[in-house]
């Protein structure tokens, strides 16, 4: 069965600190997709990144970077030089082919000035 674990419930940092959000997944499929979403206080879910199981290249987008490691079943998310606007709940999600998208419990990130 598929499962996503985000062990960090809450993280608090001060602006300009780097922060890494952990995500560990479980799946028996060889074809699957991993995602990160951001949920600001307004509630909507903002898509950040999608990665399929055959693409282990790490990705960088501005201050955001993602580290996908199949050997450890992890898909971690790093924010460099955090800002107050990064304060939100961040969700990691997993989708196997032909099944529903399931989410981890989320990590609440608080960035103070």
């Amino acid at each position, binding site marked *: 069965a598929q499962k996503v674990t985000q062990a960090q419930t809450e993280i608090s940092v001060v602006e300009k600190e780097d922060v890494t959000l952990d995500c560990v997944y479980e799946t028996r499929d060889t074809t699957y997709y991993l995602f990160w979403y951001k949920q600001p206080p307004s509630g*909507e*879910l903002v898509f950040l990144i999608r990665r399929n199981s055959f693409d282990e290249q790490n990705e960088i987008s501005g201050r955001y970077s993602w580290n996908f490691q199949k050997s450890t079943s992890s898909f971690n998310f790093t924010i460099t030089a955090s800002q107050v606007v990064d304060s939100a709940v961040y969700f990691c999600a997993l989708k196997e*082919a032909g099944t529903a998208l399931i989410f981890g419990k989320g990590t609440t990130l608080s960035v103070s000035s």
Partner: protein
Amino acid sequence: SQTIHQWPATLVQPVGSPLSLECTVEGTSNPNLYWYRQAAGRGLQLLFYSVGIGQISSEVPQNLSASRPQDRQFILSSKKLLLSDSGFYLCAWSDEGERTTEAFFGQGTRLTVV
């Protein structure tokens, strides 16, 4: 381009009353459709998942039900609401097959059962 509409945005309902939340998708055909619920301060719980008209998988049966009367319409219902049904309900769609996409979410409905 594809859009997803979900309404109403907020809803206050008494215990024991019925519920109907509607979600429609435009600009795509045969999408996968989802209903999720987020209780206060908690994660996203998958309630229902549909891969086509009349095909619905229930993850959390309880007193909620879902229907898909048309390809791009997904309805969440209850005959009698419970206090524990309060939460933030999100509808989403995604594509499957040759290009599996991320899930695109509606704006959500904040339901308070009183």
